[in-house]
């Protein structure tokens, strides 16, 4: 024991953590946005597609969900450029990886949501003369979104936490900032206490915001 807490060095290098947190959020937001598009398109496609397309989408989902994210991050950053003629920075590479990764998780969320939309609603849409496209936009997707919001919030929060893996390819996000302070000041306990608090606080603020959105849409019934 005999470890005296001293946060001075942490505050002196706080920009590493603060800037890191902002980058973490940026990585999360961009990846989730791209992942949501992938997820929505593939989920809508899946529920109306034939067997072959379903099998391909399922293969994508199962493969990504059963492989460690850190391996995918390495694969895209160190592996992919050796076989295709591409050059990208570490943050771009990570966004690419996390987008594909979140896409796989979001396909599942949206797909189960689409399947939970009551049949009667679609029939009603047909009855009042909506075209298939209008039924999708005005009936199916809004109902699906309402059903999936709680699961969606959880997935978003967990993807935000997954941005910490970007530190393994030296993207200067929050975890990387924490490690930098760890190695350079040796105020180990302090830096991880502060980092923990920052992740927790951000996570709960995000969760609170998402719960507000959920409540708003639940009330709209």
């Amino acid at each position, binding site marked *: *024991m*005999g*470890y005296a807490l001293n946060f001075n060095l942490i505050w002196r290098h706080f920009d590493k953590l603060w800037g890191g947190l902002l980058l973490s959020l940026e990585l999360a937001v961009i990846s989730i946005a791209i992942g949501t598009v992938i997820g929505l398109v593939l989920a809508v496609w899946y529920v109306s597609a034939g067997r072959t397309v379903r099998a391909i989408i399922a293969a994508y989902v*199962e*493969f990504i*969900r*059963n*492989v*460690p*994210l*850190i*391996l*995918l991050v*390495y*694969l895209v950053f*160190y*592996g*992919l450029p*050796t*076989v295709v003629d591409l050059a990208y920075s570490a943050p771009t590479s990570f966004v690419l990886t996390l987008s594909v990764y979140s896409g796989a998780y979001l396909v599942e969320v949206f797909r189960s949501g689409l399947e939970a939309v009551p049949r009667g609603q679609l029939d009603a849409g047909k009855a009042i003369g909506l075209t298939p496209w209008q039924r999708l936009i005005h009936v199916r997707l809004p109902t699906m979104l309402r059903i999936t919001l709680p699961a969606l919030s959880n997935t978003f929060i967990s993807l935000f*936490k*997954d*941005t*910490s*893996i970007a*530190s*393994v390819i030296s993207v200067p996000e929050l*975890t990387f900032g*924490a*490690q930098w302070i*760890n190695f350079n000041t*040796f105020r*180990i*306990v302090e830096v*991880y206490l502060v*980092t*923990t608090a920052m*992740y*927790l606080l951000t*996570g*709960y603020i995000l969760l609170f915001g998402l719960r507000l959105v959920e409540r708003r849409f639940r009330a709209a019934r």
Partner: protein
Amino acid sequence: MASQILYALPFLAKGFAVTLWVSLLVVTLSLVAGVLLGVGLVYGPAPLRWTVRVFSDTIRGIPILVLMFFVYYGLPAIGLHLPSFWAAVLALTLFKTAQVIEYLRGAVASIPKGQSEAAMAIGLTFRQRLTYVIFPQAFRRFLPPWINGVTDAVKGSALVSLLGITDLMQAINQVIGRTYEAMPLYILGALIYFAVNYALSLAARRLERRFAFIRE
């Protein structure tokens, strides 16, 4: 290329064994700790309930990577020296324990209140109520998500590579360091992880279907 990878196979197998060993330890230890703390969360006195709640919400609110660095670098700083292997296992176990607590809480909460009231009415003690009434029913709800969660433990174990432990992930990186065959080796690694986890998730799905007859 093929011969180099073939040559590396025994080394990768050794790493794979470490991955399985870490996963097994984490899964077993967290099962014990998680069930005990979960029972504490559901039935314990208020101070215990609050402690477990704070523990679980804190652990689940931060990335595993941060937790792992905290434990790995933090323990020696306060004078506790664990070999890096055990520090890594401890960190992963803490994380998994928080998940097991939530599975258990969810499973117990899904059992209708009438069940424990009925058990109380026929004069069963607390322990008897748990052993003969609540747990046999809650078990069926607990098992499928828990097995699904085992795949998380296997995936999470890849992070121990960052602490210099030669698991499958680290073995792959080391072979790449020697051979520069990045893509084939990462794909091989991905396939190995996939095979293990996919088998586990299939098992979870089968169990879920088997237990689906349980009424809400």
